[in-house]
Every structure is written in structure tokens, then in C-alpha cells.
């Protein structure tokens, strides 16, 4: 079978596995089109069922037909079709950009038309003449203006009225409702003045057509600018999605072919050259290269990858050419999961936004009630012409109130903040975690793998009742081969380095927080800490001094006994991460109490803590006690963040106010914690806290601004200042203020994009 045959066979396979697919069909507008399209679809080989939904403009096809054949059939029937499923995130994004741009252009046209009428009218009213109806000529001219305004309402403002009506019949109300009511009231009143001037006192014969046109223009302008600004809030996710290349170079039968990334399957072999992006997650089969994972993990230094190493989709191959095998594809790649998580988190709300949510649920009807009340107040107590005053104030109240500013305040900032964090390799699970992280008072750090590299090495072997170091190490390694503890792996690695072959292990038992026991070559072996030896009655007292000396040098002494007798003390040290000291300093500068938590012995733990500048240490803590320590701190009134590797520390991470899982590269289990640090550095922790503080600050500014704006704007619009200062707000100013208020919120949120995460 040639490569081409195989690839087309595979295409068929992938279509076959997709039993139902959807197509967008444009141009279908009548019931007869449905029949025509459906019969065209059924004629395609492999189509078993087909149905066309006219309302949605989509066709649903089941069977084994190729998507391209279906599209051709619909095209041949005289319509245009597009395959909807299996669209990559990138295509969806491009579509979105296109439709946003079209929406923007349309809004701008509406703006020009509305302001084209509104601005000259406003200038006339302000500087040239009176906008009153006193003579028949004025009546006629204002009637023409009224009709022109109606055209503006139809062409530029139709969406407000349709939206308001549709919401109304659904028993809901939104911004459209307010704009439609406000502009509608102003126009109807003005038309009433033009039609029946005699029914009104002289002073009340004022028309407000300019207000209707200006408000429609300004609010549309606000919407258009908001569309632009909102696009920027999702830049981070766009960048992440942009990391995914569209094509992958796959190697089959010695030939390299470029295929769409969606078609790469598990086990496929792929080639990547210097400067190219990795298409899917995989494992290196051939070659070595340095890989830039900074876009994913925030780790600026490229990582060297060799045969057997894991690769992540979206990272950039810098120097060598690699052949690798796909291990995770499609939605399973680390990149896809990161994108998914960021998307989800970007729309979750921190608790601080809940009050605004409650308010916005009642906001619009409440504003309508206030508008009616203010009109009644003016009619009852206002000076003449009270009807005109009542109308102007009610309109201004409706227009100035801005549910958008309130509703946008929290989500816009979260959107930008979560994206910003993701850019520096910090994945925030949801808004709650974001808010909690900004309030932390204590940070608990696990030692191994968090403060230290988590790759301990054997540094010292002190034989006690034995003479053959290799034999002792071989037995120890045989025993430890059963354990997954990092310290155990250090022993095994050390034996391997000496070329010692391990022997069969029997009766293995791990004693959590103490050590391990088992039988090797008929010797009963024990390996573990002081506590284990004491419990098992092994004599260690003569060696305690040595053990303490080792511990003081930040090495972990472990005891190894053969047949109940101490054979050796093996010391293991875990080097401290290069930037732990600087990162811990940053945490402390942020006012956090930093505590180290470890199962390691007290002396070693204190030695490590001293090196990195931590004053408080909880040592010799059993895994199950870690959560208790967190609870103790919380009982002291602390808001506790816990940082660990996400697996061994799961209960403590869960109990902490914010659990941080620290990973190395893209291996980290993304789902395991409130906040995931993609790179191993503790700087990620300080970054996460800095971003959450900045985001929460931004949300507070937005909420404060939106509350104050509405709380001050609505009463002023209702005319509360009039009795004291004699001022009233013009509905046009209200329209401008309203358009500006939500734009301000979005712009302020965008300011977060400029926030510099890394100070250290």
C-alpha cells in the first residue's frame, strides 16, 4: 500500500468514525430548498440520513460520507456549505475576528448616519435657534426632522427596539430596553409637540429629536469601541491558540508529508526542524535539540530534549531536528488542556462580583421604576413646563443608567488577569482561586520538589556494621526499587551509577512517613528514618551524632538495617532550586508569612530553610498530618496557601485556601490544584499572587467606578440637583456618559495587560 493510499484510507476512517456531522448552509430560504438540499445530500455515497434545518441554516448528515463530498453536493444544488465540526480553535478564532470586524463596520455606519443628523441638530439647538414649535412653518420643518429621526431610529437603532421587544416578551429587560424606552419617549413626545402644539403650554413646545439621534449614535459608537476593546481582553487566549501550528509533518514509509493537525493520530511519527513548532505532544525517537517552552510554562530558558524525553505541542524547536512519536493529540495535548482551562477560568466569577450580579439582575426594571417616579415627582412638584421636565428627566434617567458597566466590571478584569497569568505559566482554575490568592497571609511550602529540585542524590555512605559498601548499596537499592519516594530513587540511581544489579525484592511494605521494609536475598531489610529504627528496636544511638552532623549540612540521613542490625547511614541531599532564595524573598516582601512543611528530619529541614531564608519550619510531618498543619494555621486566623507537587500533598492542597501545584514543564497535572505553576520555579508563586492582587485591584476599581457612576448619575439625571443648583442633565450628555462608562470599564481591564508580572 503506498503512502497516498494509506493517507486516503485514513481520511475515510476518520470520516467514518464521525458518524454525525454538521454543515452550515447559506442561501436556503424556503421550504422547497429543504427538500432540494436533503435529496442532494442523500444522493452522496455514504450518506445514510440527512436533515436540513432552515431556521438554523444547518444540515445534519449521518453516515460515512466524506465531508468534502457533502459540501460539493450542497454547492452543486445551488447553495453554499461549510463543514462545521472538527473546526480547529484557530479557525473558530478567525471566524470570530471576521464577524467581529463586520459587526464593528456595521455599527460604525449606523454611528455616522445617526450623528450625521444628530450633530447638526444639536449645533442648531445650542447656537443658532430655538427647537420649539410655534409657527406653522416650524411645525412643518420639525415634522420633516421628526421623520428623518425616525429613519435614524430604523436604520441605526433598530437593534435596540427589536432587542427591547424580544426581551420584553420574554419578561426580561436589558440595556436595549433602556435605550429603546429613552429614545422612544423623546421621539414620541417631540412628535406629540409637532402634531398637537395647541394642547401644550408655550414653554413645553420643545422638540428633542436631536437627543434621540445623538443617543442612538453615541451608544452605537460606545458599542463599536467596546467590540474593539473586548477583542483585546482575549489576546492571551488567542496567543495560546496561535501556538498550535496548522500542519504537522508526518513520516510514513520513509516519506515526509504535511497533514492537517487534526488528522494526526496517536503513534504517528513526526519530524520537526529547527525553528518549527511542535504539532502534538510526543516522545523523542531520534535526535536531540533545545526546545523553547516559554510560551507554555513561562520558563525562559530552553530545555534540552533527548531520545525518550517528552515534548509538548506548541513549544518551539530551536536547534536540532527531531523525530518524535505522537503521545497525545487533539484535545488531549497539554496545550489544548491549558487553553480549555484558561477559557473556563476566564468566565468564572470571583465572589467579589456576586453583589454586582445580584444588582444587575434587578437593575433595568428598577431603573424603569425610578424613571416613572421621577416623572411623577416633576409632574406633581416641578415648575412649568412640568410635562417637558418630566419627560426630559425620565428619558435622562433611562439613558444614563448603565447596566453594562456593572455587569462588565468583574468579567473583563478576570478575562485579562487569568490570561496574563497564563502567559507567565500560571494557570488559575477559577475566579474564586484568583480572589483567594490575592488575600493570602501565609504561604506553606513543601520542601522536596518545591523548595528543592526534588532530585536527591546520595552524598554520603557511612558503613556501621558492614564492610562492603557496594553490597550494602546493592541491598538498599533492591529494597528501594519497590518505592516511589524521591529519596528511594536517589538510592536506586546511585546503585545504577556504580553498575550494581538489584536483586529480587519480596514482602515489600511501605510505612508512610517512616520508610520501607522487605526481604532481599533472605535478608530482612529496613530502610528509613530514626523513628522507624526506634520502633523496630534497631540500635542507632552511637550513630546519632554523625546523623546530626549530616543533617546540619542539609543532607537527609537515613538508616539502613540488615537483619535487625544497623548496617549503614546513607545521606541524601536534594539541591535547592537556583531561584528559590530570590522567590521566597519576593513572597516575604509581599507581606506573606512563609512556612516550610516537610516529612524530612528537623535538622535537615532547618538547614534547608536557613539557606533559603525561611524562618518557620514544620519538620517530621507525616503525609496525613500535612493537612492538619494547614488547619492549625487556619485556626490562627491565617489565610493559607499551600504549595506542593499536587500528588503527595493532595489533601493539604485541598484544605488550604489556595492550593498551588508546582510542576516541572508540561508534565504537571493541570486539574489537581486551584493554581498550577507550569514551571518549577517558585517565582511562579510570587507571579500568581502579584497577578491576582493586580486583578482584584482592577475589579475593585471597575466595580467602584460602575457603582459610583450609577449611584450618582441616576439621581442627577432625575433632577435632584435642580432645586438646589438649578441644573439638569441633558439626555445627550447622559447618552455620551453611558457609552463612555462601559468603555471605561473595558479599557481599565485592558490596562491589566500592561501589568509587569515579574518584578524579581
Amino acid at each position, binding site marked *: 500500500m503506498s503512502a497516498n493510499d494509506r493517507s486516503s484510507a485514513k481520511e475515510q476512517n476518520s470520516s467514518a468514525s464521525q458518524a454525525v456531522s454538521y454543515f452550515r448552509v447559506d442561501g436556503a430560504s424556503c421550504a422547497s430548498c429543504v427538500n432540494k438540499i436533503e435529496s442532494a445530500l442523500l444522493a452522496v455515497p455514504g450518506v445514510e440520513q440527512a436533515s436540513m434545518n432552515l431556521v438554523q441554516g444547518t444540515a445534519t448528515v449521518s453516515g460515512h460520507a466524506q465531508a468534502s463530498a457533502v459540501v460539493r453536493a450542497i454547492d452543486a444544488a445551488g447553495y453554499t456549505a461549510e463543514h462545521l465540526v472538527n473546526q480547529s480553535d484557530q479557525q473558530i478564532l478567525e471566524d470570530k475576528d471576521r464577524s467581529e470586524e463586520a459587526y464593528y463596520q456595521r455599527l460604525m455606519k449606523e454611528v455616522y448616519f445617526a450623528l450625521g443628523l444628530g450633530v447638526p441638530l444639536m449645533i442648531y439647538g445650542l447656537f443658532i435657534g430655538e427647537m420649539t414649535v410655534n409657527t406653522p412653518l416650524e411645525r412643518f420643518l420639525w415634522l420633516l426632522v421628526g421623520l428623518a429621526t425616525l429613519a435614524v431610529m430604523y436604520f441605526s437603532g433598530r437593534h435596540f427596539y427589536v432587542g427591547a421587544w424580544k426581551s420584553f416578551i420574554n419578561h*426580561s429587560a*436589558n440595556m*436595549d430596553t433602556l435605550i429603546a424606552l429613552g429614545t422612544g419617549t423623546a421621539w414620541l413626545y417631540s412628535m406629540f409637540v409637532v402634531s398637537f402644539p395647541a394642547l401644550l403650554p408655550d414653554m413645553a413646545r420643545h422638540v428633542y429629536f436631536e437627543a434621540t439621534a445623538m443617543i442612538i449614535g453615541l451608544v452605537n459608537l460606545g458599542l463599536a469601541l467596546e467590540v474593539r476593546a473586548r477583542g483585546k481582553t482575549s489576546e492571551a487566549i488567542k496567543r495560546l491558540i496561535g501556538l498550535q501550528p496548522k500542519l504537522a509533518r508526518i513520516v510514513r514509509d520513509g516519506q515526509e508529508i504535511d497533514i492537517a493537525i487534526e488528522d494526526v493520530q496517536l503513534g504517528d511519527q513526526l519530524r520537526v526542524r529547527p525553528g518549527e513548532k511542535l504539532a502534538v505532544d510526543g516522545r523523542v525517537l531520534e535526535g536531540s535539540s533545545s526546545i523553547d517552552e516559554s510560551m507554555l510554562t513561562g520558563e525562559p530558558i530552553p530545555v534540552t530534549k533527548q531520545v525518550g524525553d517528552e515534548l509538548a505541542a506548541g513549544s518551539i524547536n530551536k536547534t536540532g531536528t527531531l523525530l518524535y512519536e505522537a503521545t497525545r493529540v487533539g484535545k488531549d495535548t497539554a496545550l489544548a488542556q491549558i487553553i480549555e482551562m484558561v*477559557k*473556563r477560568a476566564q468566565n468564572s*466569577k470571583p465572589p467579589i462580583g456576586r453583589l454586582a450580579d445580584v444588582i444587575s439582575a434587578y437593575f433595568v426594571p428598577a431603573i424603569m421604576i425610578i424613571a416613572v417616579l421621577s416623572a411623577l415627582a416633576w409632574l*406633581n412638584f416641578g415648575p412649568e413646563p412640568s410635562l417637558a421636565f418630566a419627560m426630559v428627566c425620565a428619558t435622562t434617567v433611562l439613558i444614563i443608567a448603565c447596566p453594562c458597566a456593572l455587569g*462588565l466590571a468583574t468579567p473583563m478584569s478576570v478575562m485579562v488577569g487569568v490570561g496574563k497569568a497564563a502567559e507567565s505559566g500560571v494557570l488559575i482554575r477559577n475566579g474564586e482561586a484568583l480572589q483567594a490568592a490575592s488575600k493570602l497571609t501565609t504561604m506553606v511550602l513543601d520542601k522536596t520538589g518545591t523548595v528543592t529540585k526534588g532530585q536527591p542524590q546520595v552524598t554520603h555512605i557511612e558503613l556501621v556494621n558492614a564492610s562492603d559498601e557496594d553490597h550494602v548499596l546493592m541491598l538498599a537499592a533492591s529494597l528501594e526499587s519497590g518505592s516511589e519516594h524521591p529519596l528511594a530513587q536517589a538510592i536506586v540511581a546511585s546503585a545504577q551509577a556504580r553498575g550494581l544489579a538489584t536483586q529480587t525484592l519480596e514482602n515489600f511494605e511501605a510505612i508512610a512517613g517512616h520508610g520501607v521494609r522487605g526481604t532481599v536475598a533472605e535478608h530482612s531489610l529496613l530502610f528509613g528514618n530514626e523513628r522507624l529504627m526506634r520502633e523496630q528496636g534497631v540500635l542507632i544511638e552511637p550513630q546519632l551524632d554523625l546523623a546530626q552532623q549530616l543533617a546540619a549540612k542539609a543532607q537527609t540521613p537515613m538508616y539502613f538495617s540488615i537483619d535487625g542490625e544497623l548496617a549503614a547511614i546513607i545521606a541524601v541531599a536534594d539541591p535547592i532550586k537556583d531561584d528559590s532564595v530570590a522567590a521566597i524573598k519576593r513572597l516575604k516582601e509581599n507581606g506573606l508569612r512563609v512556612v516550610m512543611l516537610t516529612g524530612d528530619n528537623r535538622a535537615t529541614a532547618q538547614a534547608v530553610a536557613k539557606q533559603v531564608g525561611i524562618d518557620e519550619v514544620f519538620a517530621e510531618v507525616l503525609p496525613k498530618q500535612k493537612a492538619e498543619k494547614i488547619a492549625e494555621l487556619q485556626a490562627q486566623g491565617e489565610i493559607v496557601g499551600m504549595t506542593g507537587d499536587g500528588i503527595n500533598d493532595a489533601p493539604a492542597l485541598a484544605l488550604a485556601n489556595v492550593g498551588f501545584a508546582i510542576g516541572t514543564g508540561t508534565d504537571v497535572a493541570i486539574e489537581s490544584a486551584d493554581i498550577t505553576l507550569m514551571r518549577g520555579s517558585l517565582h511562579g508563586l510570587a507571579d500568581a499572587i502579584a497577578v491576582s492582587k493586580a486583578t482584584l485591584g482592577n475589579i475593585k476599581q471597575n466595580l467602584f467606578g460602575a457603582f459610583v457612576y450609577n449611584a450618582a448619575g441616576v439621581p442627577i439625571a432625575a433632577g435632584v440637583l435642580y432645586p438646589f443648583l438649578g441644573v439638569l442633565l441633558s439626555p445627550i450628555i447622559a447618552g455620551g456618559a453611558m457609552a463612555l462608562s462601559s468603555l471605561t470599564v473595558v479599557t481599565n481591564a485592558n490596562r491589566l495587560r500592561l501589568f509587569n508580572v515579574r518584578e524579581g
Partner: protein
Amino acid sequence: MLIVNLIGLLVIALIVWWFWLYKGETQAAAVDELVIQVANGSYQPSQIAVPAGQATTLRFFRSDESPCAAWLIFPDLDLSEELPIGESKSVLLPPLAAGNYPFTCQMQMYRGNLVVSES
């Protein structure tokens, strides 16, 4: 003047009743067939009934271009989906316990309610 005031108060009473007190009917019909239209500032239908304890797929079709309509959020389920314009989007919901699960746009202007009940 009395009449004007009475009319005003009546309007307020109507607003309270229409927007806050009125409870709409729920759309219980086969959810599989149902397409929730996102258009003109609302979800249509906005009251959806589904049985408890079963995974459900809701299909949304967004024709509303306003950026407000772009995101669909189920706050109680920690779930959000971006709705593309002019295409149907399936949203998979896990089996749910009986209760009300509101869904909204990002700023809660578009509102719907998923009513999960024991069948």
C-alpha cells in the same frame, strides 16, 4: 393630576409584575430536538426543563452579533462556552441533581433557567 399619579403607580406595579413576579412556562419538550436561539438580547426559549440524573446536551444557536451574546455561562456548574455566530453549538451538561440552574451571558443581561426535576 390624581389620574396621572394613579397611572404612574399602575405602570410601576406592571413593571414589578411583568419583570419580577411573573414566572414563565418551562419548555419541557424533547431537549435533544431543542435549539435555543440566542437572538435579540435573549435566549429563546429561556426556561428549559430536563430530567435529573441524566447527562444532557443543549444546543444553542447564536445569531446575535452583540459581543454580549458571545459567552454562555452556567455559574453553578462552573461551565462556560463561547458561542460562535451563525452556528449551532452543543453544550454538554453532566447529570444534575434536581434544582434550578440559571444560565446567563457574561454580564447577566441574557438570562435563562434550566429546571432539573425528578421525572
